[in-house]
Every structure is written in C-alpha cells, then in structure tokens.
C-alpha cells in the first residue's frame, strides 16, 4: 500500500448471470486469484495476483469469465511509459535485478514483417502443391565442396553425418527443469512423428526419453549438466551452446527449488542445489578451444553425430560464424534477440543482441564470400512465428529454423511471461506435479504434430507460388524477397531489393 502500491495490471470480469460458482477457476489458478465466498455464494477474485494466463477463462464452463487489461492509467508520456515507471517502482521496492520470461515484448523492428515473398506469373509457371510433388526435406551437416571420384571413376558418396528433417523446422532447446516432463514428452513424441528434432537444452535427458534419441539433439552447455557418454551417444546430434538470444553473454540460473526428484537426477546434481551455468565455457577462449571441444565430442561419439554450435546473434556475428565454420562444427545455430527464455534479467533480454534476420543475412553472405558456406548448415531461431517466417528465413540463407515459443503456444502457453514463478497454470514451465499433470502429452504431441503438418502445407503453398518444388532451391534465393519500408542500409545488409525494384 501507499508508495509501494502498483495497481493490478489486469481485471477479472465475471458475468454474474452466467457464473454457476462451480469453482473450476479457483481450482485451476495456481496464483490463487479466485476464491469462493460461502456467505454470499459468490466467486470473488484478487486481481493483484492475476498474470492473465487465461487458464480460468479457457476452463470456465459457462464462459462467465474474461480478463482484461486494467485501464487504471499512470500519467504516461512518450518517454516515461507506464511499464518503465512501474519497473522503477518495483526496483525501488526490491533493490533487485528485474527478471522476465519469454521473448522481449519491446517494440523493435520485426524484419520478417517487412519482407515480402515473390510469386510466379505468366513467364514461369507456379506449381500446385496439391497436384505436384513438393520436397520440403532438408539435410543438415557439412556438404562436399565438389564431386569426388575414386580411382575407378566412381563418385564418392560418403558424407559426414547429417540430420534429415522432413521440413526445415526443429524444436529448439528447452531444458527439462525449465519446462516440465510432460512438455518434454510432448516435444519428443511430436519430433519423432513429424520427422524432425527436439533439443534437450542444458538439463540432460530423462531416462524415459532415451527411446526418442534418434529425434533428439543433446546439448552441452557451460554448466555441463547431465552430460555423460551415454547421453552424448543417445541423441542424433550434439549441440554446444555458447549463447542464447534472450540473454547473450550471461549464464543461466535454475533455482534449487526446481532441482527436485528426476530433475536433479537428470542434471546429475544434488536436490535443492542451484543449477548455475557460467556465462562462458571456462575451457573456450578461442576458436581453437572451441575446435577442441567439437572434436572431443566427435571423438566421444565415434564421428557418427553432427555437432552444432549455437550462439546468440550479436554485433559481429558474421566473424564469429566464420570462426565456427572453421572449427569443425557441422551446423551453426544462431539465436536472435527476440528469442524466448524461462528467465532472464529484463535489461539483458530487452537490450542485448541483434535481430535474427540481419544476423542471418550477414552470416550467410560472409560464409559465401569466404567460400565456406558448404562447411556448415545454418539454423536460425529467435522468434520464428509462422510458415512464412520459415520461408523468408530459408530465402535469406537458412537451412532450417528453430522454434520454441511457437511450440509452447501449441502446447497451451498463453504468453503470460511469468515462467520464472514456476507456477505455470498450463503445466509447461513448472515442476509442481499437480500443474505438470495439466499438460497431457497425448494432447500436447498431437497439437505439435498438427502445427508441423499445417506449416508444411503452408511452406509448400508458398514454394509452389514461387514456382519452386524443392526447399533446397529456395535457400539463399534472396531474389524471392523484397523489402518494404526499409532503409538502403537495411536492404543492403539483408541483401534484398526494395519492393517495386
């Protein structure tokens, strides 16, 4: 109260003529917003606790509920927006670093929305994907520079290990611990059924999920949690995580309260200890050091698994990528600054890194210029929201995309951005058994499979329009893109012409 008081951000609107006081909202709210008043027989709410996750709205059987943004307004101006003012109030109360979850909500340019895709008219025919075969399959890994033949003149077919994707989309790293067992199961099953991959993140691989190994990318990050020989060999590929788009330059911190039961066993750390991932890998200070780790991992897995190096999109990303391409890595994953997170310091998330579109265009160009583009495949993430974002990314030079936020939305996430509280009402970003139960992996995996199926259809339609019947033929084909409302500089970095040119 008083100086500490911040008016609740949301209001619970209950239609009394429809509310039957079944108390489902009360039972479903881990934030304890709703409660029943026995004296009046009415449902009440404490809106100060509401995070607008929409769980109650979704389960109310009579549609008696809605959550709206409060219109109680602070006196904003163009410089001091209400969020900025409230952050000051919070820090003045707590003295602490502000924490946030999911991707940055700030208004920064989304270049995908300023890029438009071409379509064929008259001179080269478009293709009807319902009638003609369309290929969305991609292979990730090092590609040969030129055709080589043996002494008898036969083509050498042996390739370094590759990942085969039925469409250029994978589920990116989310650790078991940051998300629930059921969320992991949903991702693993959906990746298997959709012919793609999911990623363990830095949490190790639960023993129950080894069976999904052929569709699992196992991650090795700075804390090395859950890494052992069996783990490395369980997956289809190994990812060395250097950085994450939402929080480049800093490590991770999963509080001890979440290191319980299987999470602790899977991470191979005692229950209740904080899982702190250092900001850097303490054994990597140069591309040569990175190369050592890449080859250590290849050695440990008999050169059967491609190695991915994941970095955040930062200022000199093209030079960094060039180095990685020479380190022996098979795939480079770049995570843009709009990417999500289970928890990050707000200032880092909203102010560090660069947009993925610019990073991708710059890296692809740099690797081509240096003649090493075929050394590696490029995977990009950090807010890929739709099939058209995927198509644009491929046209800008990506081999495939990573999605995480979109996958969580398919699982039921309502982007309330309070993952850090561990009270996810949708059973995703939580370890509380009563909440985890709310995500049924049968439903979760089904919805993810639906999403992948839908995107694949859309990708085919967009390809067909361009007269392209193989996604490989679109890669780096920037002629298929035009910019709108972009400056000369932006267009030149993106390597695309302006619309109308």
């Amino acid at each position, binding site marked *: 109260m008083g100086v500490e008081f911040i008016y609740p951000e949301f209001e619970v609107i209950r239609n009394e*003529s*429809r509310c039957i006081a079944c108390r489902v909202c009360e039972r479903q709210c881990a934030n304890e917003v709703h409660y029943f008043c026995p004296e009046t027989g009415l449902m009440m709410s404490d809106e100060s606790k509401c995070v607008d996750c929409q769980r109650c709205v979704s389960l109310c059987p009579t549609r008696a509920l809605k959550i709206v943004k409060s219109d109680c307004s602070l006196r904003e101006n163009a410089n001091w927006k209400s969020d900025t003012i409230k952050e000051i109030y919070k820090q003045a109360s707590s003295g602490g670093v502000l924490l946030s979850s999911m991707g940055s909500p700030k208004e920064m340019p989304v270049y995908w929305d300023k890029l438009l895709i071409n379509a064929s008219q008259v001179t080269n025919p478009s293709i009807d994907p319902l009638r003609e075969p369309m290929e969305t399959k991609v292979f990730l890994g090092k590609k040969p520079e030129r055709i080589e033949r043996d002494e008898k003149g036969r083509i050498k077919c042996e390739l370094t290990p590759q990942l085969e994707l039925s469409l250029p989309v994978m589920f990116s790293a989310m650790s078991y611990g940051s998300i629930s067992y059921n969320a992991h199961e949903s991702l693993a099953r959906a990746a298997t059924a959709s012919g793609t991959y999911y990623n363990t993140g830095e949490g190790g691989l639960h023993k129950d999920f080894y069976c999904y190994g052929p569709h699992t990318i196992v991650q090795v990050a700075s804390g090395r949690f859950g890494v052992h020989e069996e783990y490395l060999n369980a997956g289809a590929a190994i990812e060395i995580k250097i950085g994450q788009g939402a929080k480049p330059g800093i490590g991770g911190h999963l509080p001890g309260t979440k290191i319980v039961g299987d999470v602790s066993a899977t991470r191979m750390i005692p229950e209740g200890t904080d899982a702190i991932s250092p900001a850097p890998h303490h054994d990597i200070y140069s591309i040569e050091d990175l190369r050592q780790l890449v080859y250590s991992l290849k050695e440990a897995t008999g050169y059967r698994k491609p190695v991915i190096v994941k970095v955040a999109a930062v200022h000199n990303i093209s030079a960094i990528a060039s180095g990685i391409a020479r380190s022996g890595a098979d795939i480079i994953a770049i995570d843009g600054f709009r990417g999500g997170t289970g928890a990050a310091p707000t200032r880092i998330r909203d102010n560090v890194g660069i947009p993925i579109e610019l990073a991708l265009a710059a890296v692809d160009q740099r690797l081509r210029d240096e003649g090493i583009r075929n050394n590696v495949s490029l995977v990009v993430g950090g807010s890929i929201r739709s099939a058209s974002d995927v198509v644009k990314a491929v046209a800008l030079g990506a081999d495939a995309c990573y999605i995480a936020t979109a996958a969580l939305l398919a699982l039921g996430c309502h982007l309330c951005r309070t993952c850090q509280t561990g009270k996810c009402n949708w059973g995703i970003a939580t370890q509380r058994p009563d909440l985890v139960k709310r995500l049924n992996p049968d439903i979760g995996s089904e919805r993810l499979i639906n999403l992948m199926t839908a995107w694949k259809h859309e990708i085919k339609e967009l390809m067909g329009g361009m007269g392209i019947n193989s996604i490989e033929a679109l890669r780096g084909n920037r002629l298929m893109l035009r910019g709108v409302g972009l400056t000369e500089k932006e267009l030149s970095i993106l390597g695309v012409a302006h619309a109308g040119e």
Partner: protein
Amino acid sequence: MKRIYVNEDRCIGCRLCEYNCAFANSGMRDMALALKGKTIYPRIHVEGDDKITFAVSCRHCTDPICMKSCIAGAIYDDNGVIRIDKNKCVGCLTCILVCPYGALAKGENGVMQKCELCLNNSCGEPACVKGCPNRAIVYEERGESL
C-alpha cells in the same frame, strides 16, 4: 463394450466432469440456466487430495452386484449398460451398501441415480468424457482387467 475409464495421472481435479454430468442430465439448453444457484447431483464424482485426483463413476460391472441386490428390481442390464428405473426405486439404498466403487448416490428427489453413459440425453457420448479438458476421462473399449 465401451465404458468410461479415468486415468488419474491425467486427472487435474477441476471437477468439470461433475458439472458437465449435472448439466447433461438436466435436459436444459444452457448450463448457467440449468445449474446456477443449485446444488448439483452428478453421477460422477472426483475424489482425491491436493496431489492425486480421479473421477469415479459406475464401472458397468460384468457381474453387477447392485443389480443383483436391488430389492425393487429397479436396476437392470441394458446390453451391458447398467441402468436404473427411477420409477421403481424406493430409496432403500441397498445399492449404496453393496457397490464397491461408491458409484451410486441419491439424486435431487432422493431417488437413486447412477451413470448410464448419457444414453438418455442428447450428448452422443458421455458428457464427462466430452468435456474433460485433459482427456483424463475416456470412453472406449478395453479388454479384461489390466
């Protein structure tokens, strides 16, 4: 025969099944009109504590002891579905005494009622199954005891 099965690993204890059951058997079009301000008498009930919850309704036993014990001959087997003739029931509660699942309970007017798989209302499939937000309650054919 298709029966209702509940998976307690999936049951989230929201109790929507109880309300969907009461609504389905109310014969009314709107849930708010049907249930507002009323005590509900569902034929399925959720048991449990703050960790484990599960919904219990009639198992439609192959050897239904309630039917065999009914002193009014009101409980009968309709092709495997165990049903109750509310007109014949006199409310002796012998079925409550014998049902090992606690699946029968008094209805609004004191007459016994039980799950009849929504055969008599317009749901097409049991309302509890249809409305379960986590697919914890399913309506399917299963073999002998697991």
